[in-house]
């Protein structure tokens, strides 16, 4: 079973780094700057089946207006990536999700607070994260550097979209 997944997040939040080490990829990162999208695959083995997550890594945009929402068409889930050292990227990720869902309806997602290895520059309070968790959101503090929780997040998303 395959599922289209879109990775959304502001500029330089580490989306590309997150996928670089943990997925199968045949396309170089120049696709991001030329076509505005790069496709990678992450196979997740669940107890009853194997889900191939086809990850669409969209070029990060600071300007939300230039976000090509059409790339999200047909997606089964979202990976929202936030740079934990820049509080503003949370708002960017949530806005991108709103735009995607306004166009194509609600879909499951996981919210990653990335760069958790930079504890001294961390800008998101625990209470803020807990508030979001109260909404029932699946939230992971990830680090592309150490790989912490990256696999957990993909596994969680795979089980959500495979239902």
């Amino acid at each position, binding site marked *: *079973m*395959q*599922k*289209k997944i879109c990775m959304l997040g502001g500029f330089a939040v580490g989306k590309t780094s997150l996928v670089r080490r943990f997925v*199968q*990829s*045949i*396309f170089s990162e120049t*696709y991001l700057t030329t*076509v*505005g*999208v790069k*496709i*990678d*695959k992450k196979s997740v083995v669940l107890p009853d089946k194997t889900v*191939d997550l*086809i990850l*669409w890594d969209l070029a990060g945009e600071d300007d939300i207006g230039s976000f*090509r929402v*059409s*790339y999200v*068409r*047909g*997606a*089964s889930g979202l990976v929202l990536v936030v740079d934990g050292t820049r509080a503003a990227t949370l708002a960017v990720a949530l806005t991108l999700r709103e735009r995607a869902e306004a166009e194509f309806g609600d879909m499951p997602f996981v919210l990653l607070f990335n760069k958790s290895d930079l504890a001294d520059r961390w800008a998101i309070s625990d209470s803020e994260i807990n508030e979001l968790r109260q909404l029932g959101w699946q939230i992971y503090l990830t680090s592309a550097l150490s790989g912490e929780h990256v696999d957990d997040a993909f596994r969680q998303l795979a089980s959500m979209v495979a239902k």
Partner: protein
Amino acid sequence: MTSTVDPISLAQKAASNDTEIDREALASLLVEIARNVDPDYRARFDGVPTADPRMATLRQLLVGREISELSRVTHLLDEPEQLASAVGGVLPSAAARAPHAQLGEALAPAVERAVQRSIQKSPRTLTDILYPVFLPAIRKSIGEKIDQTFQSLNETLRHIFTWHGLKWRFEAWRTGASFSEVVLKHSLVYRVEHVFLINRNSGLLIAHVTADNATSEDPQLISSMLSAIQDFVKDSFNETEQSGLDTIRFGELRLWSEVGPFATLVAVIRGNPPEELHEIFRDVLFRIHDECSQALEQFDGDSSQLAGIESQLQTCVELKQEDSNQGFPWLVVAAVLLVLIPTGGWLLLSWQSGQRWQAYVSRLSTQPGIIVAEQKVRDGQFYIAGLRDPLAADPQALLSGTQIDPARVHSQWQFYQSLEPEFVLKRLTASLTPPKSVRLSIVEDRIVAEGEAPDTWIDRARAAARQLSAGGPVFDISKVRDVSPEARAAEHWQAYVSRLSSQPGIIVAEQKVHDGQFYIAGLRDPLAADPQALLSGTQIDPARVHSQWQFYQSLEPEFVLKRLTASLTPPKSVRLSIVEDRIVAEGEAPDTWIDRARAAARQLSAGGPVFDISKVRDVSPEARAAEHWQHYVSRLEAQPGIIVAQQTAKGGHFYISGLRDPQAADPQALLSGTGVDPARVHSHWQFYQSLDPKFVAKRLVASLTPPDSVRFSIIKDRIVVVGEAPAAWIDRARVAAQQLAADGLSLEISELRELTPQKLTHLREAIQAVDIFFDSGKAVPGPEQLPVLDKLANHLKELAKDARKAGVTAQFMLTGHSDATGRETANVSISAARAETVRALLKKRGVDPELLLVRGAGTFEPAETENSRTGSSANRRVSVTVNFH
């Protein structure tokens, strides 16, 4: 001298050259000059005048024009601009007449540089210039090349009368195609290596088939990337067409894609494929859609239900044309014959099915929301294309019961939006989701909305109405009443009221909404938030709010606290705070403030909070005591002979330590009248001797007890003693002076004069000459000695008095003696007893006993040497010596 030239003729001759010369003026001038050439006339002059005006006139007449012309030319050469315009006028013809070789050489470097610069600056300009020149040249060159190729091809074909050539000619005859077409067909070598079927919506791979020996990367990733690139092209160039990218070419490889409603078929072809391949791919795609349209539409990444598709795709992959060495196509001929025989029967059947087909098509045409654009029957297959509204009846479903084999029907429907009112109504209902209070209906081809709705919905409906195409039905929403402003205003008002109610110091007694106006009444503390100010930002029109507030003093602790702070102005050391509804003051304050605070606490109304000032410590007595103490310390420090080393005030007690001269003022005595409680003062003084001359002098006076005739004074740190004193005192003073010198102080005694009054000396001698005699063994003098005693007593009294006058003290030593008879111890004892007796007798006669000293000398100081056996009466006596102090 007479002129030999006729002036008239000269003038005329000149005129023949230059018509501009005023000949008449010249002639008359010359005549006049000639007349004047007369010896008499000349004699009157010393010489011909240097500046003859006539000469100037003559010059003007002859060369005036040349002069002006010359100056014009000079001016022309001197002015660069004028020169440039003058040269510019002749430059083209000058260049034309210049020798070509030389001009070319001179201009070549300048022109090269100019072109170089132009290209550097903007290559486009030169490209535009050269474009008309290059294009025909290139075109011609290519044309020639193509002609050449074809020619050589033709030549080759013509000359090689080989087995191939024959075979191809046969094939051409057999198929009815032109020979060149056959050649082209055989030279088109291709192979379909991969076929992908990709979900149009998500870009996920539905199926993938590969030819033998062909390799590629992960097909799932490729299919997603292909659709991403499709999207990219569509977005980048604003292409709205349904079809998408249908050809990508990269060297030998071509990607051809065919787009269906739910899936896209992408074929990867190596080589030169013929155009017919498009048709084949399209057919396969249509077949797949026909068979599995529902599964395709609902595809969600699970391709297990679409397993049969791969076999369909397999037919595409097997397509290829190889330049193999085919044998004579006997098999093909046989196959053709086999095909031809059933054709007759097939034609009959196809006519029948054609009839059924036409019935189906006409039925479709009458369906609302379906427009048949094109339909044809070919080779027993039915092709139909057109538009259909997604809400219209399904053409596929209509097929059932028509006896037409659905497998032979190839439909190509483009979705469109029908403008028939009923479709528009359906779409509007789906997209606008009107609230229950709104009803949509069709009234005479118009769509009418009626009822009540919030403005957000009305806005959306209005936008939808505008978007309806010009040809479509009118969407009338004028009958929908906007219920939102009142509802919102009421909502805002309630939010405002509840905000007010939660404000401390504001009590809302009553509020209501009536005819769009808001009324509110209640109590408010002057220190509470301003209800008017709270209105801002609530979106309530202040003009519609009618408030009636009565002021009152809120007894809520925080307001009481504010008022207390304003009225009491507590010192910085006092902090007011609210602790469990009580107002608590803590810290330190002087008693005046505490009194005011206590009064304020009493005045607080019964229902109000308690004002607790018990934790404010009265710091005024200590402050005052500390002030007094400091005053006392500074007074001590100013005292000579007192050195304050250390002083502190702690816990209401005062500690002071230091040095003091015994002669200095008593610190304890200084305390009186300072207001400092002596019981709380703990002093610790070390005595020291101040070297201040004043103190030294005092000490000297105390220790030397100088006579009245001596005066101490201090002159420039020196202590000077002047006056008269007995020699003994002067001796003691000298010793003191030596001791002081060791401490670096000087005591001047050189001014002292020795005091030895005559009378005292006489008296002393008289007194010392008298002895009191005793009988042997007796300690009391006999009666004959009494007059001696009386006289002695008088002398002593007189001397004591005189000595006192002189400032000295006279002391009288009474020394008892005994004779040498008897035991020595008895003699010592009797001598002391005789002295004691005399002392008592003198005391009895009025001599100050203090001045009388007594000693027993025994036999040691005899008045005369004696025979120890008989004894000497002269030695049994009491003698008197006088000493002055």
